């Protein structure tokens, strides 16, 4: 019987079984950022341990960088202290740091792939739950806590329990105006926010075969929102094409050898999965969240659920809690809900293709009055290419603020925050209470183009209507 990619990568990296039954797994690539690494370096110092493989760790700064303030010292002294601490830790331990002056800085899950550091058949760890993003390349990528960051720095390994594998096939064709973001929101809504606990998700089927790497990354990114710590797509020509020529990708003869090796990691056609889920692409419409977790989602033309629709007492309680926080009434349409802020960015949807797609439709349009709209490229490289293409002008002329690279309004660790109970149409990945910096702030997750539609109309809208995206003839 064949093996899945997960099993093959796991076996290739297993060092030994630990006395407690966990596996000591070699971590090929370690990515770090300023929020979850300083304490780990502190623990290393306390024990007098060096970084074991400094050239397998790569650092960037993303969460705390202000995106509208490029000069240091930053006005927030805590942010300044954190960037300096990272700089110091990297220098002392000879870890490569994509600092703000390198032109390579950005959100860790955007930088790894665009530099060619993220490669198929590898294990990757990062002290950040959206590390699952890197699975788009056929890597096994784990989000970890700070003590595990310490373990990886000190030993290049960590103790893990093997996961089961669930294959999720999405077959058929997506309708125009339906994006990778809608696919993953639909998967999470279908399988639940903790449906993936104990599983690695293998995404497959026609839709994934046809997806670009950036689309695959958008889906893998949000695996953790469905409870799956790991999500991946088997590597194929699309993967290799993307990696070719990137700074850290193998070159020359090494390249051909690497491609052969990478191919060998793909799941065998006859491998058995612990679970298989089939989803029809044609069933998916533009999806938006209405509540306070990413599973509380509906299609744009569906009504907001009512408390009575919950199947259990706890489900009813969570619908009631979500409606109260969102200030929504069950049974009413979500379309037409007034928004205050439109946020385009994050490690889910802050890549070049996201910006390009939006700019294509935004040209000649204007952000509705009273709406704060910001566009935050996920990395300095994304920003640079976008500017070369003139996308920044399109966004500015439409009334978007054009910012520097960082996590920005995805979470409240930099100056970009919601105020009071503002409602934000957001291309990010979490709609938890307080996530965007105001305790009473409200978040609706959606695809980048839906964010643009909300910005232009000032309300939650169907991007297909706003931008005249038609169903194909005969559909």
């Amino acid at each position, binding site marked *: 019987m064949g093996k899945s990619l997960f099993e093959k990568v796991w076996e290739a990296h*297993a*060092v*030994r079984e630990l*006395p*407690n*039954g*966990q596996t*000591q797994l*070699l971590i090929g690539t370690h990515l770090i950022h300023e*929020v*979850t690494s*300083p*304490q780990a370096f502190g623990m290393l110092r306390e*024990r007098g341990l060096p970084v*074991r*493989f400094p050239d*397998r760790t790569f650092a960037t700064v993303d*969460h705390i960088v202000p995106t509208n303030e490029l000069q240091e010292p930053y006005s927030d002294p*805590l*942010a300044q202290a*954190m960037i300096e601490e990272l700089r110091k830790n990297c220098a002392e331990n000879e870890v490569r740091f994509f600092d703000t002056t390198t032109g390579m800085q950005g959100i860790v899950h955007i930088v790894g792939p665009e530099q060619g550091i993220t*490669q198929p058949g*590898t294990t990757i760890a990062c*002290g*950040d*739950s959206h590390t699952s993003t890197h699975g788009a390349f056929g890597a096994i990528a784990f*989000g970890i*806590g*700070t*003590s*595990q960051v310490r*373990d990886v720095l*000190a*030993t290049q*390994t*960590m*103790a893990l*329990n093997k996961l089961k594998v669930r294959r999720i096939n999405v077959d058929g064709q997506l309708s125009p105006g339906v994006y990778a973001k809608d696919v993953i929101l639909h998967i999470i809504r279908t399988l639940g*926010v*903790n449906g993936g*606990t*104990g599983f690695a998700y293998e995404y497959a089927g026609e839709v994934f075969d046809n997806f670009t790497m950036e689309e695959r990354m958008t889906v893998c990114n949000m695996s*953790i929102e469905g*409870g799956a710590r790991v999500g991946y797509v088997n590597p194929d020509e699309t993967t290799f094409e993307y990696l070719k020529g990137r700074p850290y990708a*193998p070159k020359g003869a*090494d390249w051909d050898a*690497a491609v052969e090796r990478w191919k060998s990691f793909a799941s065998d056609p006859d491998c058995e999965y612990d679970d298989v889920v089939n989803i029809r692409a044609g069933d998916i419409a533009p999806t938006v969240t209405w509540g306070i*977790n990413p599973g509380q989602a509906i299609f744009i033309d569906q009504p907001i659920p009512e408390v009575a629709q919950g199947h259990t007492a*706890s489900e009813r*309680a*969570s619908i009631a809690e979500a409606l109260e926080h969102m200030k929504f009434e069950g049974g009413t349409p979500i379309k037409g809900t007034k928004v205050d802020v439109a946020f385009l960015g994050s490690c889910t949807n802050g890549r070049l293709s996201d910006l390009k797609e939006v700019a294509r439709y935004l040209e000649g349009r204007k952000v509705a009055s009273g709406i704060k709209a910001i566009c935050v490229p996920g990395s300095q490289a994304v920003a640079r290419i976008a500017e070369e293409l003139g996308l920044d002008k399109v966004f500015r002329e439409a009334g978007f603020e054009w910012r520097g690279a960082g996590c920005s309004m995805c*979470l*409240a660790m930099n100056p970009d925050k919601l105020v009071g109970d503002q409602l934000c149409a957001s291309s990010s990945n*979490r709609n*938890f*209470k*307080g*996530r965007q*910096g105001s*305790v009473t702030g409200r978040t609706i997750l959606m695809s980048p183009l839906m964010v643009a539609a909300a910005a232009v109309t000032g309300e939650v809208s169907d991007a297909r209507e706003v931008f005249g995206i038609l169903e194909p003839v005969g559909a």
Partner: protein
Amino acid sequence: MALEKIVQVSGRGVPVPGDDIDTDRIIPARFMKCVTFDGLGDYVFYDVRKNEDGTERRHPLNDERYAGATILISGNNFGCGSSREHAPQAISKAGFKAVVAQGFAEIFFGNSTQLGMPCVSVGSDELDTLREAVEADPQLEITIDLEKKEVHFGDRSVPCEIREGARQVLVNGKWDPIQDLLDAAPRVDAVAASLPYMSGR
């Protein structure tokens, strides 16, 4: 460094009801602007405990009857969301020694175990019984027994679940794996050498 063998955890409980309590709720991101975990305990559940002006809201963690509780009792999928160890650290630094819930998010569970803070799951009806008992008598002594996999309170006890590997490391005082990991250094080198991308080939 020998670690404590965590076989039983005893103390009073405090219920923080609700399912899907996420790590942003446990420790809001703005309090993660720090380079050590010290002091995080003050900010645990901050936004549900305090009003924006800093005054206290009605919340079990502000309720004097539960002062000094060391066992946190919550709902299903506790600790979902981010991988931030700041969340279990904040709970632990606030004086908690264990969490009882219906279920836990994976990364949170692993992070907590590695801190020596057991996370045990009990069924939803049993959880209600436990919560109601604690609400009726906040002085009630609770004991989590990791050997028997039971939670005792008053004259009752309910079964609890914890992943076997995690249970073992806790009861054997091996919840921090760093020494085991370090011990295998020669094998790590061998596996690394077998992987072309790691050996620079």
